[in-house]
């Protein structure tokens, strides 16, 4: 579940979960909120909207902070989902932080991506089409009792007309008023429909493979990066190079090359001033 803040994602999740539960399915919810880039802390407040589920043993809610991840999910969201899956939850719902355009990680993690918008999002939809609009498997216009809902429905449909058909799936667009529970049953039905489609065309297995594949790629990136910074001395080289680059003595690209060199010359003796000026020249 992704979409702008205030679109009512948490309330929708709560209502959907109630329906899944009625159907006898167990549910896990992973709610992601942003980590403050200044303090490293976070306020995880999505639970406020899900209080009716707190005491249901068939529902497990875990809040996560992004901790510096920028794709709308938290680091380890994928692993947490795997754990919840192994734990036997039938449905796992991931709610992204909802800051807008850059939340594309969710599409790599989830099998069905639902974009939640509100009539007020209408003006921003053009800006969103490049990212958010392309990853949606289903579109929801929540708070649809408000002015502008009809127009937004039309706009989304038009946007989808322009979007290349993706293996025979045309995303459904539907209205909900989550606070009153209206339209939520249709949403749940469509999510089920998308899942049936994924199964029928054997896409589920491929998605699974893609998911695992990008998990591995992520790990490679993380490990290599960690390895790169392993040697304590490298940070001080970085500091020095950054200072020089900031002073106009070299470009960031040149600084990067120097950093690589420094790392490769094992031992990483700090280079002399003379060498530096040579390099700049």
């Amino acid at each position, binding site marked *: 579940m992704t979409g702008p803040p*205030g679109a009512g994602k*948490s309330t929708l999740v709560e209502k959907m979960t109630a329906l899944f539960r009625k159907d006898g399915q167990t549910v896990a919810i992973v709610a992601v909120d942003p980590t403050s880039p200044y303090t490293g802390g976070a*306020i995880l*407040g*999505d639970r*406020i*909207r899900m*209080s009716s589920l707190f005491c249901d043993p068939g529902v497990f809610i875990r809040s996560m902070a992004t901790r510096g991840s920028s794709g709308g999910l938290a680091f380890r969201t994928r692993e947490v989902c795997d754990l919840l899956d192994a734990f036997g939850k039938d449905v796992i719902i991931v709610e992204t932080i909802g800051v807008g355009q850059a939340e594309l990680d969710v599409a790599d993690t989830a099998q069905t991506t639902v974009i939640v918008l509100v009539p007020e999002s209408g003006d921003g939809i053009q800006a969103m089409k490049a990212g958010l609009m392309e990853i949606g498997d289903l579109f929801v216009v929540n708070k649809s009792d408000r002015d502008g809902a009809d127009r937004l429905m039309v706009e989304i449909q038009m946007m989808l007309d322009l979007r290349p058909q993706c293996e025979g799936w045309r995303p459904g667009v539907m209205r909900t008023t989550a606070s*009153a529970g209206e339209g939520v049953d249709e949403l749940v039905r469509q999510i089920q429909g998308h899942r049936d489609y994924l199964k029928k065309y054997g896409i589920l297995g491929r998605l699974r493979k893609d998911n695992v594949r990008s998990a591995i790629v992520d790990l490679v990136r993380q490990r290599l990066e960690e390895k790169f910074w392993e040697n304590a001395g490298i940070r001080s080289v970085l500091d020095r190079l950054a200072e020089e680059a900031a002073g106009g003595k070299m470009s960031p690209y040149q600084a990067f090359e120097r950093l690589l060199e420094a790392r490769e010359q094992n031992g990483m003796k700090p280079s002399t001033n003379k060498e530096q000026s040579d390099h700049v020249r």
Partner: protein
Amino acid sequence: MSDKIRSEKNQWRKKIADSKMRDVSFDTVSGESLESLYTPDDLGGFDYLKDLGFPGQFPFTRGVYESMYRGRLWTMRMFSGFGSAEDTNKRYKYLLRHGQTGLSVAFDFPTLYGRDSDDPVSRGEVGKCGVAISSLDDMERLFDGIPLDKVSTSMTINGPAAILWAFYIVTAEKQGVPPKKLSGTIQNDVLKEYIAQKSWLVPPEPSLRITVDTMAYGSRYVPRWNTISISGYHIREAGSTAAQELAFTLADGFAYVERGIQAGLDVDDFAPRLSFFFNSHIDFFEEIAKYRAARRIWAREMKNRYGARNPKSWLMRFHTQTAGCTLTAQQPENNIVRVAWQALAAVLGGTQSLHTNSMDETLALPSEKAALIALRTQQLIAHESGVTATIDPLGGSYFVEALTSRLEEKAYEYFEKIEKLGGITRAIEVGFPQREIAEAAFQYQKAIDEKRRIVVGVNDYLIEGEDLEIPILKIDPRVETDQCKRLERLRKERDSGKVKKALDDLRNACGSRENLMIPILTATREYATLGEIAGVLKEVFGEYREPPIYW
């Protein structure tokens, strides 16, 4: 003339520019920056007749009545309630005996939420923060021996206000007092519940419908009753600034007026029964300016925007309570002094009634002695200070007039923001006032933690190992068990067939446009409980939940 003042002022400024100032903040407690001196040129295009006028005349800046405190002192109304109906009844009689002139009922949390004392969620809360009232039976015992045609009663009740008011009206009936002889106030201001106090019942829309029903019923059958007390008190206690208190309270007030008009009522039929309730915080002049600005804005908007023609619709009458949140648990006796000047600010600001907090309220509910000192504080101001002889004695002060106008401007800035969000109910839904208040509260705490603002006994002038010598009022846990037993008996003894029918009738009325006061009164007479009546409303209208706040 004014050019001369300005040039002399500039010269004076130059002279003091180099003088040493203390290294502290001179901002008001709300963060408004202040000049060290105000002169006539700070008044801008000030027009005496237009901006101030005379007491009892438009725009009422100087006060709502012609003679103000020479004619009649404010009502000394101490908010109290704790334990069982009998406990509180005893305290009321004590206060009346000592010269209090009006009653003010504090209900416990279960009652505020429309829950009976024997509801599982009420556990541990019965009678703790106020008196437990679950049915007409409790209300009858609360006012036993107190003639309801002689006292005026204010009830701090919001979500379930219509129900508790019905309990009161029927209690009076049983005393032989007809509704038209009753005077008092139900707070009945649900909008500020969503904003600040958070004791709501159903969502805003149906809640406002019930509010309008009480307004309509009151103007017809209980004409001396204030059916809403539009409250800034809780907004301020939740941490708002003075300007936010002013702006959000008035915005709520406008919303009630608009609802009344939309429901087909004549504004002049109900507006004279609207009253207000403000906080008196620690910053003396800022508070006085706030009250004056509030009267002026209300009068102007009622006359110009809502087309009220009855002068009684223009005037803002208000109750004031000193600010609980400014009291300290450290060296609590100091609170007596804080309360005294807060009370003085309310009087200089022209309040119609006043509650003074007791020094021990940061520790527990007030003990009898502490409550008496608080009441005495009002009597001292009324009879010894001499401030009641002259109306609006600070009117014309360059400083107070400038500050009054500044608060007014700030309020209008907020009105504009609220308007842009689509009105106050929509603003509440997206958490706008809530966020503004939380931010102000955080900044205030930060200023104290960083010692930019000194609170005596808290971050300066501390006493190490302070020993508390104040007796604390304790609520006997028996109150809860007794209350549950009494309810059990009541449910057995009443005619359950009639109760069921009355509740069914109420349920049906919820779906129609019928005034809900009528079926609520009927259910009350059959001794349906608060929880049962509120339960029907929640069943039909749903329960409200707070929106998340984004920091």
